[in-house]
């Protein structure tokens, strides 16, 4: 087992564990904080995959913006300081069963696929992943259009969020 593998396993365990806490903890504030942990784990996974840019964006956008947004939302929608009542449905076991089933199904698919065991090729020397990504996002021959559409989507979401949440009184 290489060092890389050991690091991966630790990161994976942390990520999955905190994720599990996100969906099980009763206190939503805690859940949001556990989410931060999960997202951080995923950022490390990106780093392990040599996707540095993604890792940074993960930290900045997800943790910096989205997770904080969740915390605000939780605080805004609390009736009182404490959580009251059960946080899950009575039939939560059905959801659990389905989740397990989908996990088993997906795992079976992954393990049943011959390509899943191959190792990653080494990066070419002088490979500039961030530069390549930037070019791909701005080149007319590649993904400039989806990129622009994404920006429009964000703008729409911005306007939409303001509109929906606006207090008309």
């Amino acid at each position, binding site marked *: 087992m290489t060092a890389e593998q050991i690091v991966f396993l630790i990161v994976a365990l942390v990520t999955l564990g905190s994720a599990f806490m996100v969906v099980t903890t009763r206190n939503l504030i805690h859940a949001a904080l556990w989410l931060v942990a999960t997202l951080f784990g995923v950022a490390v996974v990106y780093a392990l995959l040599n996707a540095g840019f993604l890792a940074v964006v993960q930290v900045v956008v997800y943790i910096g913006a989205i997770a904080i947004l969740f915390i605000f939302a939780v605080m805004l929608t609390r009736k009182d300081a404490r959580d009251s009542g059960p946080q899950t*449905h009575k039939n939560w076991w059905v959801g659990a069963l*389905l989740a397990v*089933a*989908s996990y088993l199904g997906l795992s079976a698919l992954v393990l049943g696929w011959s390509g899943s065991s191959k190792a990653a090729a080494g990066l070419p020397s002088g490979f500039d992943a961030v530069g390549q990504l930037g070019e791909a996002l701005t080149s007319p021959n590649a993904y400039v259009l989806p990129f622009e559409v994404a920006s429009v989507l964000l703008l729409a979401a911005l306007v939409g969020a303001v509109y929906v949440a606006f207090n008309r009184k």
Partner: protein
Amino acid sequence: MTTETLIWLIPLPPILAFFLIVLFTNKSKALSHTIGVGAAALSWLASMVVFFRAIGVEHLGEHPFESSLNWLPTGDTFLKIGVLIDPVGAAVLFFVSITIFMIFLYSVGYHNFGQPKGDHDVAGLPPHGATVEEHGRKHVVPSIEPMYSRFFAFLGLFAFGMYTLVVSDNLLTLFVGWEIMGLCSYLLIGFWYGKPSARNAAIKAFMTTRVGDVFMLLGIAFLYWATGTLSFREIFTEETLHILGTTMTPIFGLSAAGLIALLLFIGTVGKSAQWPLHVWLPDAMEGPTPVSAMIHAATMVSAGVYAVIRMFPLLTTDFNGHELTTAMSVVAFIGAFTALFAATIAVAQNDIKRVLAYSTISQLGFMIAALGIGAYVAAVFHLITHAFFKALLFLGSGSVIHGMEHGVLHTGNHETDPQNMFNMGGLRNKMPITFWTFLIGGFALSGFPILTAGFWSKDEILADAFGHGHMAVFITLAVAAFMTAFYTMRQITLTFLGEPRTKEAEHAQETPWTMTAPLVVLAFFAVTYGWVGIPEHFPLFGGLVPNWFHEFVGGTLAEHPEALEFNVVPLLTSLFVALGGLFFGWLAYRNVQTPAEDKFQIPVLKNKWYFDEAYDFLFVKPAYWFSETFVSAWMDKGVIDGILHTFGKVTQFLGDIIRNYFDLPVINRFFGDGTADATQWVGRNLRPIQTGRVQQYFMLALVIFIVVGAALYYLLLA
């Protein structure tokens, strides 16, 4: 102006007058009659010019005035119409224009022009008189006709029809004029349409003549087909006539010429009121008197005879001079029979105009019979003289009636019929001009020897019949002539002689100059016109005046008719029947005061041999039944619509069955409602799944996705 142009123009003034009066001047009575009479004068003037130019032409028969133009395109050819004045045309034009002019003039007085408006007069009824105050005394005077202008318009249209008929060079325009006159006779007989008797008489006249007309139309179509032309001059060429004469038809073994002539003759039978289509003419006396004179004496009924005269060459194709062809025998028979038959009825009539009406029928019978035996010139001669003296008699009778109406207004007793001769008597002193002119007319009608025109023309017919050995015709006509003189004298005696039998007759008055002047003019011709046709071989008078008429009119025919050898038998006969009839008439009626004393009021005669009743039973009633019951109610509403409605009912029945036994139970109940019920049941039971909870939906979707995905994976991919 060339004569041809002038001929084209002759019919125009009256028709223009018609349109002018109808469209513009109908409000002004004076203007209307000025236009009407003026138009008649213009046409008369033009006719005179044409006539005198015509008699100045040598051999007019071979070179008549004619002119034509293309009227109807028919396939590759044209139907031409045009004008023609040959000797017959000129002679007829002469009397037609004079009588029409005189009648126009007469109408002014007859319809009381210059008199005040009536108290209660309405359009559609004869005027009833007006009350005026003179010298502080109220009395009733005749009132002016409310539809005065209209009368002149109709007369104008009528005159147009007659002129068109006379000047036309072909059967088609002749027929046009013929029918226009038919319409006018309808309009004029029904002029006082407010009287039910008048409107029925108008329809009777139109329908009866139309019976003849449709046959005539067939004849025209036949002739046009057979010869390709309707122009007289083109038909009456030797080869055309020969072809027509030798083509046989399947009907009664007649030749084409004979059949056409007979078809056309049926038209004449209608128009000239010959038996068996004579019934309309006496009833037509419902019209104003100038109308009776115009239509029933001078022009329209003459038109019927004129048509036969025109068709004479066709009628006499194959005639060898002695033995009558089938067609000719028919014509001669109808003519002679009508002459006698109508004369018998005339004897028993009391209405002054009805006597004249039957007399007209009878005299027309003379002409037809003459044509039937081939006496062409005699027929034309009698046609013309008759037109003069019969118009005179009608106008005279109108004058009498008018005088009597004056008396009726004076006494105020409207019960007295001003037309009944038994209400008259002794009018010779009250109305001298009317009396003398009427007397002349009556004598002419009776054939008073030497002096009157009627003698010469009637004698010629009798002589012709005798001379060519048609004894049956001769005897019939002689008897008819005797009766003619008899009933004429009866009429004169009852009307003018003796003493007034009623108060009204005592107060009768002579009529104004517009009425008497035409009488005088016509009386002049009723006497003198006979002198142009005195046979050359006639004792004493023969040769004094050349027999111009025979020469002139005879020239119309391709084969100039021979002048007849003089024979004393017909002369004696006609002398006897005329004088004898007059004498016996005077003898029988000089003392008669009431109808009861009249020995000739025999019911069968008085009721016109029951022809009206018979026709009513045989034709009119069945026609009503056929129209109203058979065709309308039974066939259309009953059978045809019945079949249709049956279709409808059967369809509806089938529809009901399909609806009740298939659509409703099977389609509606089972398939339609059944499907709906099933769906509703399923829906109702599935409804609880719709919780509105997104997570449950999602869960369910996932369950199904996983199950289906797994199934697909294992069943298909693996």
